[in-house]
């Protein structure tokens, strides 16, 4: 029977009305940059603005995390406060007048970004959220470099997650993701003042911590301080790769991700998750989906058809010979013992189309229903 529930936006996602907003009814009215916007009680200025198509830059904000207002990037002018307020956690109220692009706001953004730039001794990584903001708003005034003694974990020998403290701005998206989404609390803000850094308890390797190597910290990091170790050395890590949206081949959750392909090398060099709120996995991946793609171009992959020769060895052959041998063997069994002595094991690892073809091979070509697949037992 028809079902009139429209698919998507994914419930609770960024695109859907916030659940925190009570019954979700937009009973309030605020004015943002001169335009009247309806909003629901409990919504933030940022949520109301985004729904109205108004861009407010953020750094420490991630739809999946509780807002903290830590980075100060989203400060806007609001009629209920003499000071500027962080849009990411300031609640809407009836009749508020909000200005997001005044000279004062602009000046603040430039100064703030100048501070972040002064704390990036290796320079800001190109292609990151921080870099995009700097390109949008500029750096004024230029400030001398500060020397923040943030420590990394040079002895951490995990193969996937690399922390480069010189690029960190302490927005704490990574630690909050680790607490609130993956909920394993493997990394935390440690030390004080300018030495504050992202650390594990006792600074052990992630391998020896509660970390499950989901890599969500990398995904949420707006500065590239957390990067995939496998590609950290590549200059083209962020731009110039060709993304191919596909479905993960491990478990049945069906996470969507982008295989980042180096076309010249015919190689998948990185896996990235789509933006939160756009697919079932809400921007999340697990250790296998995000990192365990080394099998794709692995040297042990089968590259030629094989048939068993007279001496009993498996030897390489061409496709024509292999297909004919397989056909002869299967039809031989059918002719000698009957069609129902053949069994066809399809695969829950393969596609719908391939499963359809296996059962069609069994049923239409051989007339048997002896067809099942590996998830059956």
């Amino acid at each position, binding site marked *: 029977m028809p079902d009139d529930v429209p698919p998507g936006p994914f419930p609770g996602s960024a695109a859907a009305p916030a659940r925190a907003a009570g019954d979700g009814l937009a009973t309030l009215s605020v004015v943002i940059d001169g335009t009247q916007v309806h909003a629901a009680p409990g919504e933030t200025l940022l949520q109301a603005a985004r729904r109205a198509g108004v861009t407010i830059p953020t750094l420490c904000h991630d739809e999946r995390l509780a807002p903290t207002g830590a980075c100060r990037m989203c400060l806007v002018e609001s009629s209920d406060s003499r000071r500027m307020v962080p849009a990411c956690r300031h609640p809407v109220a009836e009749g508020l007048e909000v200005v997001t692009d005044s000279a004062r706001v602009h000046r603040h953004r430039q100064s703030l970004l100048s501070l972040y730039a002064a704390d990036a001794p290796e320079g800001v990584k190109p292609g990151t959220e921080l870099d995009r903001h700097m390109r949008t708003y500029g750096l004024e005034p230029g400030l001398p470099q500060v020397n923040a003694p943030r420590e990394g974990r040079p002895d951490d020998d995990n193969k996937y997650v690399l922390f480069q403290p010189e690029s960190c701005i302490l927005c704490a998206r990574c630690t909050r993701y680790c607490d609130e989404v993956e909920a394993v609390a493997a990394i935390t803000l440690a030390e004080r003042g300018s030495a504050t850094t992202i650390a594990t308890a006792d600074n052990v390797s992630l391998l020896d911590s509660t970390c499950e190597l989901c890599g969500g910290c990398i995904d949420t990091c707006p500065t590239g301080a957390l990067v995939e170790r496998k590609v950290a050395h590549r200059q083209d890590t962020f731009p110039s790769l060709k993304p191919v949206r596909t479905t993960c081949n491990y478990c049945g959750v069906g996470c969507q991700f982008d295989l980042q392909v180096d076309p010249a090398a015919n190689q998948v060099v990185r896996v990235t998750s789509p933006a939160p709120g756009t697919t079932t996995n809400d921007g999340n991946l697990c*250790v296998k989906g995000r990192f365990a793609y080394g099998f794709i171009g*692995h040297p042990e992959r089968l590259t030629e058809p*094989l048939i068993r020769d007279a001496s009993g060895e498996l030897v390489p052959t061409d496709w024509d010979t292999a297909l004919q041998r397989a056909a002869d063997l299967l039809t031989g069994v059918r002719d000698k013992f009957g069609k129902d002595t053949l069994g066809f094991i399809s695969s829950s690892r393969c596609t*719908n189309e391939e499963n359809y073809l*296996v059962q069609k091979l069994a049923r239409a070509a051989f007339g048997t*229903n002896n067809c099942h697949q590996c998830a059956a037992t």
Partner: protein
Amino acid sequence: MTNSIGEIRNADCLFVIGSNTTEAHPVLAMEMKRAVLRGAKLIVADPRRIWLAGMADHYLQLNPGTDVALLNGMAHTIIAEGLTDPAFIAQHTEGFEAVKAQVAPWTPERASAVCGVPADDIRAAARLYATTYKAGIYYTLGITEHTHGTDNVYGLSNLVLMTGHLGRESSGMNPLRGQNNVQGANDAGASPIYFPGYQRVVDDDARRRFEAAWGVALDDQPGLNLNQMMKEIRTGGVRGLFVMGEDILVSEPNLNELEKAMPNLEALIVQDIFLNLTAQRADVVFPAACFAEKDGTFTNSERRVQRVREAVAPPGQARPDWQILVDLTARVGYTGNVGMTPSDIYDEMAGLCDKFAGISYARIEAEGGLQWPCPTPDHPGTRFLHREGPLRGKAQFIPVDFRPSVELPDPAWPLLLCTGRTLYHYNAATQTRRDQGVVDKQSACFVEVHPEDASRLGLDDQERVEVRTRRGAIEAAVRLTTRVAPGRIWLPMHFAEARANLLTVDAGDGVTGTAEYKVCAAQLNRLD
């Protein structure tokens, strides 16, 4: 799943049973964590103290294989305390009286005596589940991989039906599919009893539909299920085997018997991406493309059909499985697939299945994935099932009685062995063991042993030990942990050099044939 993954975060009660979700479905588990952090109540029933147990409001550490006793005890409480949904039962179900009579003697005390969960915990869990409006059940192989797996599922569905927890957002019955395309493989008819779209091979109308489309006469009798096929190899009932994308010599139960029988096969055709143990025994091996090298669709646990896209070219002469199948099918005399692309193949299937009839590559491209049922091109897809009442009209209550597992510990085989999966590897691990980062985290087989048992047997942490059952033996490193209860051990099935399935029993569920991977009797023996 009757619900969607995105609905989990809005649930107010999650009943997770027989699913180590954070390891087997990590990203779906993130939604569960989000719900609990938001304030949802969590009930976890599992013989092992899994990660989710640590955040549960009620952790029910049941004896392995006693799910029916636990579920009947919960049903008893719900009925005895008047917590059922009489309107739902009257309008949408049949057979409630039979279940009511069946569970009447299953007081929580009696259930507790069997399943080991304190009676008051059974009551508390039952009350919480029954009285929460948005309450969903989530389960996987801990429920189904038993000789009474079907009974376990009926036990769960009885709870769903008597409380009316169906046909609503965040309320439903949610089996979490283990592999990327379990759902799709079943949907596409890789089944001895169903054509594509769950149309029965014994149904004359269904069969005529496929005969007309394919231009051939089709068999009207159900075929052998996988468990039966494996056993028929021993007796000569199966002489030729085609295997795509499975290492049966790692994944199937009671492997010593299967290995002995493999020479009986006169034809073994394998297509895979690596030369796995099964491929090494094959007469012909076809090199296949992996998921990143081909086009197609997978269907996830929430019935969402999503695209798989070619990102890189396959290595050497390897070809996509679909292409190999088109060619092989033509070689054996059926040319009806020649020239088809994956999109054409999907269209042919969708044209024969009302559930998928509205789905096409063009729509997936435009809309990013569609959830069946999706009967027409203008249908938006279905986020949760049974909205207007059960799809089949009246949902059937099925009374189930507790039956013990087929092989339980005794003085000679004193430990109860359960097998399963871990976060860092995937099934036969042909893929994950080829990426060093996960291997660093978990490089070899281990067996979880409770410290009390280890102390009695004189075993140290990390000591290598023999795990033996009546069928075979492997070696593994002892991992001392209170995740398992005394008297029980657990080990993963991922390691080809320490195959858990040399140990497991191949007795199958009477309906599905699914083997009892989760319970058998074992010994731990020191190696020195």
